[in-house]
């Protein structure tokens, strides 16, 4: 026996055998087969959109190919959605599984509290770990959140089990008009965001989901635009960052040495509070990093527009321009770049509505 280990060739073979065996033992376990974001429309057809204020149902189906034993395990489901949906408060999540005595019965899942951390999340909450690992997926705006749910029941699952499962998330989609890719994630508490991809899977919707007929302009989380505003839900006493995303579509402004912000603030009656079009440090955008073509300006709107006591900004019209105003990037330029809508002689500015849900 000792001679076997003394022989280098044999030692390597044994090492390889043990490694393969170890990997095989760990291989499993959780798969996402499909996600559906389609909703029944008024005309009876199905589409990835719903009316503002209504409850939408999202369905995930998957299966487990278990190659190890687990006792007392809770299955995890996380959902990426715009923060304005307030999924933590508004969503109800149920699931069916062939592991259950009655595979048709919808069983409950509950929100995982912030104090309950994933086993291998390095001290991060589920939401933080998911955001660091997957971000906001194919979306380009970051005002989104991962909300995590766990099965109320604990399950015992054994090597060789191959159960199917279906998860239903029903949530009110709020009143903000928007378009965003939605994210779906599955895992279990024994794994808890380990580095292995075998016990966790993520999938983003193939198309953006749209909320229409609500309030405000359509916020498009899913497509790059010349402009970006953060946070999307802001009032005049927030710090608001306006960004010019100069690298996404062809434009002449990006080659200018200085890029400026020009804006007009309106009150709730549509009357102008003030207009800022000076070309000074106050309105100069700063490049976010050497590696990006994004230029930004963070402001306190109430001070920037010198809002008098008792007045409140409801809307800001703005454009990005160079020092002599010979090049101006507007909403019309964005519409032309993305949707090929012809530009009229009168260009339309970008519009930011100050709303808070």
């Amino acid at each position: 026996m000792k001679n076997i280990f003394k022989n280098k060739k044999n030692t390597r073979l044994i090492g390889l055998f043990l490694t393969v065996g170890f990997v095989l033992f760990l291989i499993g376990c959780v798969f996402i087969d499909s996600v559906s974001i389609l909703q029944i429309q008024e005309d009876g057809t199905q589409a990835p959109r719903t009316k503002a204020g209504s409850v939408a149902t999202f369905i995930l189906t998957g299966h487990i190919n278990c190659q190890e034993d687990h006792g007392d395990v809770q299955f995890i489901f996380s959902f990426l959605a715009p923060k304005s949906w307030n999924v933590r408060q508004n969503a109800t999540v149920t699931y069916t599984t062939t592991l259950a005595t009655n595979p048709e019965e919808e069983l409950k899942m509950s929100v995982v509290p912030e104090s309950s951390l994933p086993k291998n999340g390095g001290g991060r909450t589920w939401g933080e770990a998911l955001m660091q690992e997957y971000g906001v997926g194919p979306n380009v705006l970051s005002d989104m959140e991962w909300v995590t749910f766990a099965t109320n029941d604990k399950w015992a699952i054994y090597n060789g089990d191959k159960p199917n499962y279906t998860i239903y998330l029903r949530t009110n989609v709020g009143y903000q008009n928007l378009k965003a890719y939605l994210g779906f994630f599955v895992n279990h508490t024994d794994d808890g965001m380990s580095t292995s991809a075998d016990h966790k899977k993520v999938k983003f919707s193939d198309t953006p989901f749209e909320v229409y007929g609500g309030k405000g302009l359509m916020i498009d989380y899913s497509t790059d635009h010349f402009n970006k505003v953060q946070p999307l839900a802001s009032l005049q006493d927030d710090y608001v960052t306006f960004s010019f995303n100069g690298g996404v579509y062809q434009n002449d402004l990006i080659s200018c040495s200085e890029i400026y912000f020009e804006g007009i603030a309106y009150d709730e009656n549509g009357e102008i509070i003030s207009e800022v079009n000076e070309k000074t440090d106050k309105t100069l955008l700063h490049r976010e990093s050497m590696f990006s073509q994004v230029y930004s300006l963070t402001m306190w709107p109430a001070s920037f527009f010198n809002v008098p006591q008792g007045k409140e900004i409801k809307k800001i019209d703005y454009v990005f321009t160079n020092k002599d105003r010979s090049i101006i990037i507007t909403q019309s330029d964005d519409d032309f770049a993305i949707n090929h809508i012809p530009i009229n002689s009168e260009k339309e500015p970008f519009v930011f509505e100050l709303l808070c849900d």
Partner: protein
Amino acid sequence: MKSKILKTVTLLSFFTFLISCDAFTDSEFNDYKESVKDLSGVWQLKTVSRNGIDISSTMNFSQFHLNLNPNGSYTLENYLPFAVKDNGEWRVDDPQYPYNLILRENNSSEDITIGLKYPIVNGKRIISITLSPGCQSNTYVYVFEKIDNN
């Protein structure tokens, strides 16, 4: 004779043992009390994070000073969005373990209570305050550093 010597040595050892086992009475230890945290001074806004992201470099925040005067009044210099808008009076909920800074604006009867952290970072006492001066869904963390009054 030997027996007497042995008895004497044994008795002496016993008394020495008794004396050496006197109870520890360190009056300073018994009287120890947590020190009062003096928050009065001029506090300069050093860093700001918005929804968990540091935005300190995007604006000049350091001009904002919170002056907590020893006489119980406070003043705000170069105002930025904050929990209060006007000057007034300040106090903490517990002088030894301050968890909340309580501000009352002049001509107001309402207290504004702000959650407070008061750690020492890099050898300097800092105040960390969490607030939402605009939309409630946006959370800001203001970190103030005490500056010397020279």
